[in-house]
């Protein structure tokens, strides 16, 4: 059990380090943006965009922890890039006071995200917890993007990378 936990932790640490150091793959960001644009046009199907990167990545009978974490990290990185673009787009539409509030809100969210997803590791042992933590980060980031897109006056600016 201890060994399994250690493996999970290592995978998690490796995944976290990768997520922090790596840039998202352009094709992954494009996949998320294309999905969001399609979902927006259809009216409300954007939730289905979660997994657009990790789904195919995990689909190849992946069953080892580092690979699974890597798939979720790729998804997380892509959504984080979209999140950054969305925040930038929002800031352009806002006055100084709103920008300040936006920043405070995002800081609080980041803090909550870290504690929430880390709770998998706090809760249980086993390598699966590392996978769940990585999946949690991607999921929460995707959810945040969908929330913030609601406020954008022209979401196409984000979808089209302008």
């Amino acid at each position, binding site marked *: 059990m201890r060994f399994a936990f250690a493996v999970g932790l290592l995978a998690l640490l490796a995944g976290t380090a990768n997520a922090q150091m790596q840039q998202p793959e352009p094709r992954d960001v494009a996949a998320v943006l294309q999905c969001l644009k399609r979902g927006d046009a259809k009216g409300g199907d954007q939730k289905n965009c979660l997994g657009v990167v990790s789904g195919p990545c995990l689909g190849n009978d992946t069953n080892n922890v580092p690979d699974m974490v890597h798939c979720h990290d790729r998804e997380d990185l892509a959504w984080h890039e979209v999140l950054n673009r969305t925040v930038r787009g929002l800031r352009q539409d806002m006055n100084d006071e709103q920008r300040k509030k936006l920043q405070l809100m995002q800081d609080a969210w980041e803090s*909550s995200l870290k504690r929430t997803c880390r709770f998998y590791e*706090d809760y249980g042992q086993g390598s699966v917890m590392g996978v769940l933590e990585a999946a949690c980060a991607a999921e929460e980031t995707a959810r945040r993007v969908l929330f913030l897109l609601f406020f954008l006056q022209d979401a196409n600016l984000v979808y089209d990378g302008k």
Partner: protein
Amino acid sequence: MTESDEIGRNSMIRWAALSLIFLVTPALADDKPAPKDVAAIEQCITTKTGANWAWEQCIGIIGNKCAEHEERMSPADVIECYAREQLVWDDILNKSFQALRKALDDEQVKKMQQMQRAWIASRDKTCGFIYDYFQGTMANPMMAACHARATGLQALFLRSFADDAAQRK
């Protein structure tokens, strides 16, 4: 008016709006959730399993349905719809938290409390942002929906751990 006066004024307006959400539903504030609302959400949680945010589909089944004809309703009535749903999620969240507190060791409980504090701060800023952005009466029902949804998400998150802890006994 100085910048700090302006910030103070905006802050007061926001808190007035937040207070309004809870003041217009005084009966709900102290009440337990309606048994039929609890049953509907519990039934949904039991049914919706699997990937792709399946449980999340249970969020809104009370509030969204109740506020279906929002355009013909008063803001207070719409807020009450979401407050009704929030009571259910608050109840699930509290029960899950208490169950986990019994099941986890001291260090884990401390981490859970830290997580909950961070979540509350994030939820309040996130839902308050709706008022900062839209300002005006239309923001209040949206804030109530935001609070219900955020509470629902966290309740489901904690519930998954509580269910797991119960199975491990």
